């Protein structure tokens, strides 16, 4: 056992030496905590419960023993879907924004009021990759939404065909009363395996309304992505979140929602479709620190081919978070005997006057329904597609913006 630990440490130390530290903006205290966490905890191994089904250590050793960080590239062939966009990744920070949005990058002189939020929710003390991002990230972008936006803001992750490793960090602040829609999507042109480690901290002020849609799709199946996200909601804030995870070698999302003050409403919806040998792991934590709030989660998961799709939904209701209404549901369809599905609800409730429920179902496509459609002349594949669309329709139809909904539908291949 001791030998294994030593070997792991050797690998980690050699590995870290290849990553130059670039960001100067992380507060000292946060940086120290992050580096300490990295050293103490190390890369999650097979025994790590939070990374069950995600053999991250062997992925790193196998594909990313040698890290190569690309020099900056030009943005090319990126389809601009919306007028407001910000490009992050290995490209220059191309952006086009209207009034109501302020953007700062690592190169700017960032006001202290923003820096105070960095690491505030201590993701770097909960997850190795959040700590890694905190200690060594390539680029920091701060997006401050000060006015209600007419158009959605499109956050584009762009990675060119160079290098194999990149870390991005985003801090978003949505001001009081402001309404905004953010679409986050990934444009990867790389042909080789690529490790992409991102961290987003999103602060929603009182009475703000945010609809955040993250669409993860990488048709070349080269991306290994770990994405740590934390939302913090102040009084009467409304968050609607869509997590769409499609093609790619690995999509791991740690999504944490902190309900800090009362009367908050969060609606989390997810669709994961695993194909080929993809691993999709959704790890959500809804943390009710304050009462009189409502959280609703609906995750639809489909595993095909030899893919692995995992959902872990954690709900915490603190002692003083009375009158909380928390609901979680995951529905899972296994399309292939070689695929793996795993869904686990985890509830920790310390308040006594709450409404909390969860449910999870796993099955294959309804054979009778499939036969009924085929008996009307519909091809097996089309019948299957119709049934799958019906299965996840209630996730997609909740995307109010028609352009984004269309964008999502176009990405889905069944």
């Amino acid at each position: 056992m001791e030998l294994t630990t030593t070997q792991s440490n050797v690998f980690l130390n050699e590995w870290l030496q290849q990553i130059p530290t670039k960001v100067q903006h992380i507060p000292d205290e946060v940086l120290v905590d992050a580096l300490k966490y990295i050293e103490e905890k190390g890369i999650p191994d097979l025994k790590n419960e939070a990374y069950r089904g995600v053999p991250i250590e062997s992925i790193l050793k196998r594909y990313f023993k040698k890290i190569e960080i690309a020099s900056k590239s030009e943005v090319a062939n990126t389809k601009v879907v919306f007028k407001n966009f910000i490009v992050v990744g290995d490209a220059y920070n191309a952006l086009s924004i209207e009034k109501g949005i302020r953007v700062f990058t690592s190169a700017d002189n960032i006001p202290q009021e923003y820096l105070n939020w960095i690491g505030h929710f201590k993701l770097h003390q909960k997850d190795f990759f959040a700590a890694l991002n905190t200690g060594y990230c390539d680029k920091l972008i701060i997006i401050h939404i000060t006015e209600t936006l007419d158009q959605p803001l499109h956050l584009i992750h762009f990675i060119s065909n160079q290098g194999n490793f990149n870390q991005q960090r985003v801090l978003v602040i949505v001001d009081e009363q402001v309404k905004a829609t953010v679409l986050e999507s990934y444009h990867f042109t790389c042909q080789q395996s690529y490790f992409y480690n991102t961290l987003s901290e999103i602060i929603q002020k009182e009475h703000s309304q945010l609809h955040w849609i993250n669409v993860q799709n990488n048709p070349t199946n080269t991306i290994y992505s770990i994405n740590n996200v934390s939302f913090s909601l102040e009084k009467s804030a409304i968050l609607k979140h869509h997590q769409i995870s499609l093609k790619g070698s690995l999509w791991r999302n740690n999504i944490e929602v902190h309900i800090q003050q009362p009367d908050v409403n969060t609606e989390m919806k997810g669709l994961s479709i695993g194909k080929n040998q993809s691993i999709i792991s959704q790890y959500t934590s809804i943390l009710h620190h304050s009462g009189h709030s409502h959280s609703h989660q609906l995750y639809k998961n489909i595993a095909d081919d030899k893919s692995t799709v995992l959902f872990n939904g954690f709900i915490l209701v603190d002692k003083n978070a009375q009158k909380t209404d928390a609901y979680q549901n995951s529905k899972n369809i296994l399309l292939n005997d070689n695929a793996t599905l795993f869904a686990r609800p985890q509830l920790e409730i310390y308040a006594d006057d709450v409404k909390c429920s969860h449910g999870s179902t796993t099955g294959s496509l309804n054979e009778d329904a499939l036969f009924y459609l085929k008996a009307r002349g519909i091809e097996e594949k089309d019948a299957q597609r119709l049934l799958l669309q019906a299965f996840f329709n209630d996730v997609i139809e909740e995307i109010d913006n028609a352009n984004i909904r269309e964008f999502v539908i176009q990405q889905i291949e069944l």
Partner: protein
Amino acid sequence: MTPLLSIKNLHVTVDGNEILKGIDLKINKGEIHAIMGPNGSGKSTLSYVLAGKDGYEVTEGEIIFNGKNLLELSPEDRAREGLFLAFQYPVEIPGVNNIQFLRTALNSIRQYKGLEPIDASEFLKLVKEKQKLLDLPANLINRSLNDGFSGGEKKKNEIFQLSILNPLLAILDETDSGLDIDALKVVANGVNHYHNKENAVLVITHYQRLLDYIVPDFVHILYKGKIIKSGDKSLALELEKSGYDAYKVETTN
């Protein structure tokens, strides 16, 4: 004339039990046949074997439909060749829109025949016409497929699909079960409207009642997996009077 459907010495087992024990049946274009039989005689098995459902093993015999070996075709290709089964228990499929489903089905059949997809306005016209015929409210047919439909609405929806897809052979598997007399008349009217000398109908039923409205040219009595007697429509009336027991004796002799 080559029959539209020709079943020869059909033996079928389900889970190792022989359900059909040598069925012979010929149906020509323009004809209406009725198969009557008590519970467990193999009526539904016959309809599922014809439609191609999994789990029904043909151990002997053959089925030729419109010149093709039916047993070699997938369920979807059987439908595209012109075979239609009106289900005894139509499946509820929440999230699949009734009309969208029907259009997909129709176009899939058209594509198989080398035809262009149906024009949107032409399709709407067809839907409206058949919807009226089947007395189906517009909001119903625009809902999810059979989702929350009453028993009668489901059966009407089957005949609505039949009239739009316009197949060569319509198999009605206990379409009359669970229908009140008004719905029964509407359903029968839909079937009669569909039927002409270029197609055929196979009515599978437990009771004679439906045959007052869909008048068969031939009636067959199915008992313990075999057709034990065939006749004209008077056989159905006779059967109604005497019950199945009278015919069971004939087989044992």
